[in-house]
């Protein structure tokens, strides 16, 4: 069966069985080109698709998915979803639907010829090698992904959209004497022609080379400046606590803190799935709620959690349209393009410029919001970087860090880590550093 046929089959069979059902179908096309030593060492071109199904039986929800679209597999998915629902013990529902239309958020963005894309990967890799300090290049690569998503339910939801991203990046090891540093970066855009292999390679080289000949950092408390990439990682950790689902599961310290000051007055945090060039913009969420801009924190005051229909109903708050699901998963809550609004009141003085955190998944606890993270950085004095520092960790609590923010730069940069996280350069009054 095609995905379209499979969707119709599932909805018809669900109705016959007296079930409410919602079908999410997703089809992805991926192209990745990896260059090394002047040749394309790996070319990957693929298609993948599947159907995610959720059904309500006796007021409870069950899930199943399948990538095999035989009638047998679809029947299996339907009966597994129903069994899973009947075993569940929590009231749940599929929201009433509406016609959402068909949207194209990609257009001709990825339409360049394959040969041009190959050349850009090769060019990036070559440019990475053009620095005498480059010891080895692991790869220079081009990647693109195109996704078609469609949502249909027995309650009248009907909508589809197409989106995609192109990206270029690379990884290398640079050295100066015995000092070695490995660097990696990846730039994403909605359109192939917005990528610039030469500039990306130069940035990766510069960002890596500035860490060479690093000195140990003495243990102590210093003012910290977080580059957008580092701050984006912290926003990712924080985003779990902004989820109303996490809050209802007892996994957010922000429960019962709506309307309170949780950050300094400079902090305004927005999630906006409608941003015109937003890397992860979408017209509606995984339950068919139309997308809109949500101010999560306004001048330090916590305004709202991110909700799906169920969390909004449970907490009697407004649904922000942040239902998230892939066809392989259960319904969750997730941001789309979440960013800290630039302010433009930041001046570099003296302290540690943190360029990158490592080991976020292990060193930052999304429940307690405590973090203790390895970081790379530069010592700054009188507004300029003096030397690199290494072998240290930064510790604290994310809520304390938000309170201690005293300046934000004027330019937003984006990182995609599941969702897109945007931040300017951020100044934090003081953080605890463990080093030599």
């Amino acid at each position: 069966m095609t995905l379209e046929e499979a969707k119709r089959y599932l909805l018809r069979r669900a109705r016959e069985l007296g079930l409410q059902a919602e079908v999410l179908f997703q089809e992805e096309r991926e192209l990745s080109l990896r260059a090394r030593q002047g040749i394309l060492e790996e070319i990957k071109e693929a298609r993948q698709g599947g159907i995610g199904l959720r059904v309500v039986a006796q007021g409870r929800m069950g899930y199943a998915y399948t990538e095999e679209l035989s009638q047998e597999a679809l029947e299996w998915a339907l009966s597994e979803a129903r069994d899973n629902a009947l075993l569940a013990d929590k009231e749940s529902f599929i929201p009433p639907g509406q016609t959402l239309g068909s949207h194209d958020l990609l257009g001709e963005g990825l339409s360049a010829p394959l040969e041009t894309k190959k050349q850009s990967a090769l060019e990036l890799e070559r440019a990475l090698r053009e620095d005498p300090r480059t010891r080895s290049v692991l790869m220079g690569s081009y990647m693109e992904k195109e996704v078609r998503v469609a949502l249909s339910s027995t309650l009248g939801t009907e909508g589809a959209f197409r989106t995609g991203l192109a990206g270029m990046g690379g990884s290398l090891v640079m050295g100066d004497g015995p000092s070695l540093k490995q660097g990696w970066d990846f730039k994403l855009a909605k359109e192939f022609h917005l990528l610039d292999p030469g500039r990306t390679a130069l940035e990766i080289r510069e960002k890596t080379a500035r860490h060479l000949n690093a000195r140990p950092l003495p243990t102590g408390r210093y003012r910290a400046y977080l580059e957008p990439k580092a701050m984006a990682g912290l926003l990712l950790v924080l985003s779990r606590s902004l989820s109303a689902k996490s809050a209802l599961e007892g996994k957010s310290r922000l429960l019962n803190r709506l309307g309170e000051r949780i950050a300094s007055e400079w902090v305004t945090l927005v999630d906006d799935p409608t941003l015109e060039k937003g890397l992860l913009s979408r017209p509606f969420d995984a339950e068919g709620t139309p997308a809109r801009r949500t101010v999560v924190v306004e001048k330090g005051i916590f305004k709202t959690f991110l909700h799906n229909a169920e969390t909004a109903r449970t907490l009697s708050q407004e649904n922000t349209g942040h239902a998230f699901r892939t066809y392989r998963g259960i319904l969750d809550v997730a941001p789309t393009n979440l960013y800290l609004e630039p302010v433009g009141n930041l001046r570099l003085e003296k302290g540690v410029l943190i360029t990158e955190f490592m080991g976020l998944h292990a060193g930052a606890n999304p429940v307690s919001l405590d973090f203790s993270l390895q970081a790379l950085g530069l010592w700054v004095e009188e507004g300029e970087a003096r030397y690199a520092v290494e072998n240290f960790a930064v510790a604290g609590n994310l809520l304390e860090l938000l309170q201690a923010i005293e300046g934000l730069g004027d330019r937003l940069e984006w990182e995609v880590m599941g969702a897109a996280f945007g931040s300017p350069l951020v100044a934090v009054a003081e953080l605890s550093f463990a080093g030599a």
Partner: protein
Amino acid sequence: MLSPDLVETVLRQALEGGADFAEIYAERSRKRRMTVRSGRLEEAISGLDYGAGLRLFFGTEVVYAYTNQLTREGLLEALETLLRAKGALGQVDERGAGGLDFRKASPKGLHTPKVPYGEKDKRYRLERLLEAEAGARIAPEIRQVEASLQEWEQEVLIANTEGTWAEEKRVRTRLFVLAVAQEGTEVQTGYAAPGKSVGLELFDLFPPKEVGAKAARQALTNLRAKPAPAGTMPVVVGNAFGGVIFHEALGHLLETTSVAKKASVLADRLGEEVASPAVTYIDDGTLPHAWGSTEVDDEGRPTERTVLIERGILKSYMVDRLGHLLTGYPMTGSGRRQDYTFAPTSRMRNTFIAPGDKEVEDLIASVEFGLYAKELGGGQVKPGSGEYNFAVQEGYLIRKGRLEEPVRGAMLVGKGPETIRKVVAVAKDWENAPGMCGSLSGMVPVEVGQPHVLVSEIVVGGRA
């Protein structure tokens, strides 16, 4: 999953298209996950992954495609896409003419589960999860408990133009318990997650109630723990999951994925002393029912026991097919991938430090002031510089050779090749524990392990 006839057709056409080597990896996986919170089943999902990956080598250049269409048309279309992408379409090669003589190896069933899926129903699973949750409710401070069961039944077929034909059914089961403890505004978590290449006998090996209690005890310990001190100090690293430090700091540096590109600080060092003589480091894909074991790797080769470091001397890397082509080192059955959407690369299986001859008490007694990192969370490494980090999930201070108060929020930071030279003592109490390892070819199940080890100094990231 696929007939030999269809596989042969696709592989032969790949050779005709100019490839030196071609491989098909087909997969049909059933996955299930159930989650219990507050005494009730909140979420359950069942899934079927079904797809195939097609990999062609042109010299050391690799082209890879995957598809969910495991039909003749689907696979041939994927092949054509690849040949077009490579620019090799129409370069007909004579070598494709002959038939392929598949050497079908029968699986030995080394990791076959004792309790297959059909034997117990979902309610049986739910009851075990409820036991785990109840087991965690050991104190009023435990405010939230989440218990999940993850089951995974993966059928794979790997065939290639050298005549390999390997099939395996891999069954894995893992129980997760997360406990959240709260007092006032202070919130801390504890975690336990045993997993094996077994069926539901996992519950006999790890009684759910005890798993729950373990997670809860850790959450309570962290709740009363003070922030860890910051600075450089000796660290006694716990056994079992403690081995994650050397998984990050050493294991990743020995995969040909980075070694072949000279992007590992341990490249070209065979025969050299790279670790303290107290260290013997082994990657063993054959351990019965271990979380990271399989009979064949994802390139269809039998997995094996690979001694990486023997008494400090580097003996072997972990080598997949591409790594072998690039370096000439013999393959070690280390080609692994998350699923059909990834081409395989060299990856760890069950990697551990072999037991030494010391008692754990002696290790602790020898430390004047330091950290006992009893349980560790995850970590990360940059192989090109060796810089690693990992989080201490349960830690205690050591003063004058005695274990004292718990501390939290410690992050261990260093450079792997330096840390491994600073292992000064290795105890006898070897144990392994499961985890998921992410790298170029996706997330794969691995075990990490070791006895207790004493490292003379590591940077401990805590509160300054």
